[in-house]
């Protein structure tokens, strides 16, 4: 580690609660190690704020190892900051330089209302998932062994890739239209590719898309920003697959 560490100017969105207006405020932190994660840097700031007797900055975090999808933050104009394929907890301070000014904002979307400071309500994603992101199974005790159904390796791999989506919402935050198409398409694809998921495929895609629209997310313009900013590298191919699934389901659905 080099010497005293970094001195940084932080411009952070502060908002008391969902109803209040909120504004950007400026803070200074010093002695930040390049080995710290971005969230650890915020922990240092919060220690400092608590010692000064001011309200610490509220931000979402949980596992801090890039799995849970809880951390968010729009850092210097990008979801999860300037690095690629990482969540904010995996973003290292070595991506920044001594003397930098860093803008820290919540993920912005009408469907992701701010709860407090940098914390946003992403329960819209849960409601989309509830609308169809599951496979109904008989839990009578004699469930079939999953490995009894042969699945082509390529399909299994694609389904797995789609299933790595952690639902963090970086796609929505990065999209100029705050569209949730990448998230929803990943959740549709992980089932649509597997035989177990095919049974409910039509209702699933129709219901999930309907819920997505109801939540107030925007429309997809195929800019590809979501794919670039996604910490899990979810592919745009999933959006095309969802569009196909949706088209064929809406044409062939009964009733």
């Amino acid at each position, binding site marked *: 580690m080099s010497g005293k560490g970094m001195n940084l100017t932080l411009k952070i969105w502060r908002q008391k609660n969902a109803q209040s207006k909120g504004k950007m405020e400026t803070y200074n932190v010093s002695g930040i190690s390049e080995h710290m994660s971005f969230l650890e840097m915020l922990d240092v700031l919060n220690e400092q704020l608590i010692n000064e007797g001011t309200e610490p900055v509220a931000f979402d975090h949980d596992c801090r190892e890039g799995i849970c999808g809880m951390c968010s933050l729009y850092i210097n104009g990008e979801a999860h900051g300037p690095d690629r394929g990482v969540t904010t907890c995996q973003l290292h301070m070595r991506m920044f330089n001594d003397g930098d000014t860093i803008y820290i904002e919540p993920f912005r979307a009408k469907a992701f209302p701010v709860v407090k400071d940098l914390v946003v309500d992403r329960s819209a994603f849960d409601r989309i998932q509830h609308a169809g992101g599951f496979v109904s199974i008989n839990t009578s005790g004699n469930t079939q062994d999953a490995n009894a159904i042969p699945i082509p390796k390529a399909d299994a791999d694609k389904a797995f890739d789609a299933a790595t989506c952690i639902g963090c919402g970086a796609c929505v935050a990065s999209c100029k239209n705050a*569209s949730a198409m990448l998230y929803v398409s990943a959740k549709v694809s992980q089932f649509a590719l597997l035989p177990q998921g095919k049974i409910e495929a039509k209702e699933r895609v129709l219901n999930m898309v309907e819920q997505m629209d109801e939540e*107030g*997310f925007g429309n997809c*313009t195929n800019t590809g920003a979501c794919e670039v900013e996604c910490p899990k590298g979810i592919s745009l191919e999933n959006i*095309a*697959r969802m*569009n*196909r699934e*949706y088209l064929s389901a809406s044409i062939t659905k009964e009733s």
Partner: protein
Amino acid sequence: MKTSIARKVLMALSGLFLLLFLLQHFLINFLSVISPDSFNEVSHFMGTNPLIQFLMQPILIFGVVFHLGMGIYLERLNKKARNVKYAMNKPGTNSSWMSRNMIYTGLMVMAFLGLHFYDFWIPEITVKYVEGDMSGLLASGEFRYFHELQEKFHDPIRTGLYVVSFVFLMLHLLHGFQSAFQSVGFSHRKYTPIIKKLGNLYAIVIPLGFVFIAIFHYVSHL
């Protein structure tokens, strides 16, 4: 029409239809460079054939109006989906300028269509359906189409406006062509890269071709 995907698919299909129209428009215009006589004949056919005039032309106008109307409607919905803007945003790090500005390049193309209608379509309709002259001939007995085309490009300002408009069209198509395929659900590891290349080729060659035709007629009268 009710869901986001249905709207995007219709946007894509109308866009693909307009791409086809643009190709035939370009091919016919290009005739004016290589053979004024053929250009006259094809123009006369297009301008007087009842199938083209009363079936294809209304479909085309509907396609243009639909693509414009849906584009504006989607833009309004999309703006509403993010009600608070970022204080610091770097969209250039993850997406192309063309993909983010389709509404603006599209509106510029529409503004151009206004001029284009004023230049060619309204006079054409006036001659044929108001004055009732379906002959397509000048007083001298020659076909009027090539003559009318050349006359329009005598004006350097108009020629310049056409050239600028085609640059906006190019920017619009650089994203639009490949985006339309994605919207209708076409994505393939082998074919999508080919479609993207084909899209870039189309988006550059066709507008530049139109620019060439405009400049050709401007220069040829000097």
